[in-house]
């Protein structure tokens, strides 16, 4: 059984390594995601962000501009998710504690 597990892992690793050979080279400017125009003819938003992030928001950190300005509604959703997680922790644990006190 242990040999089966190890062989499955090795097989999976071989598949992943074989698939990674087809990935584009890192930092190659001719990659599709760095192009001005995608293969279907629409403009790629990432190139706009890279070219205009500093001019739009005067912030050298491009990630912050994308996170806080261009995609700020998405970040607001993340914050609401964290807030909801905290509130659900409050609700679930408080209810459990009260029930335990009632039984005593």
């Amino acid at each position, binding site marked *: 059984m242990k040999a089966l597990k190890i062989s499955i892992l090795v097989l999976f690793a071989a598949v992943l390594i074989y698939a990674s050979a087809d990935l584009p080279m890192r930092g190659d400017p001719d990659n599709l995601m760095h192009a001005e125009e995608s293969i279907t003819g629409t403009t790629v938003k990432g190139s706009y962000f890279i070219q205009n992030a500093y001019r739009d928001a005067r912030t050298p*950190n491009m990630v912050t501009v994308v996170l*806080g300005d261009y995609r700020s509604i998405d*970040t607001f959703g*993340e*914050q609401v998710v964290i807030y909801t997680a905290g509130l659900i922790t*409050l609700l679930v644990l408080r209810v459990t504690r009260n029930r335990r006190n009632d039984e005593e």
Partner: protein
Amino acid sequence: MRSKFDSPIVLLGSRLLAPYIMLFGWYVIIHGHYSPGGGFQGGALLAASVLLIRISGGRVISRLQIQEFATTPLAIVGVVLYFGTGLVAMIMGGNFLDYAYLPIPGMEADWLRYTGMLIIEVGIGLAVMAILIMIYDNMVKGEDHA
């Protein structure tokens, strides 16, 4: 209530470390425009500095820092700070979260976006810190030595 698990050495070390971690958390939040970091990472650091005192000092000592009932309003302040920034921009005539319409006099649109991002990063940091402390408080509630 001091329990038999209390250790003055651990408490002293935590008291030495916690203010610097908190200062570094604010640095990560506010300097997020120029270096890696931002609201989520800085908020996690702020929560780490508070939780260090909570774990090492126990309930009585941690009550001196941020009390348990204060975490939920702090999280609400963080979320409302973010939402209010977007809402003010929408009321002043722009889209939701379009910081160029914020009513701060004497600023161009690009510097207004800079300031708006700073405000929402602080909001995210406050919310993340309060939520992490809230989760810890709710998990250890009812255990005296925690």
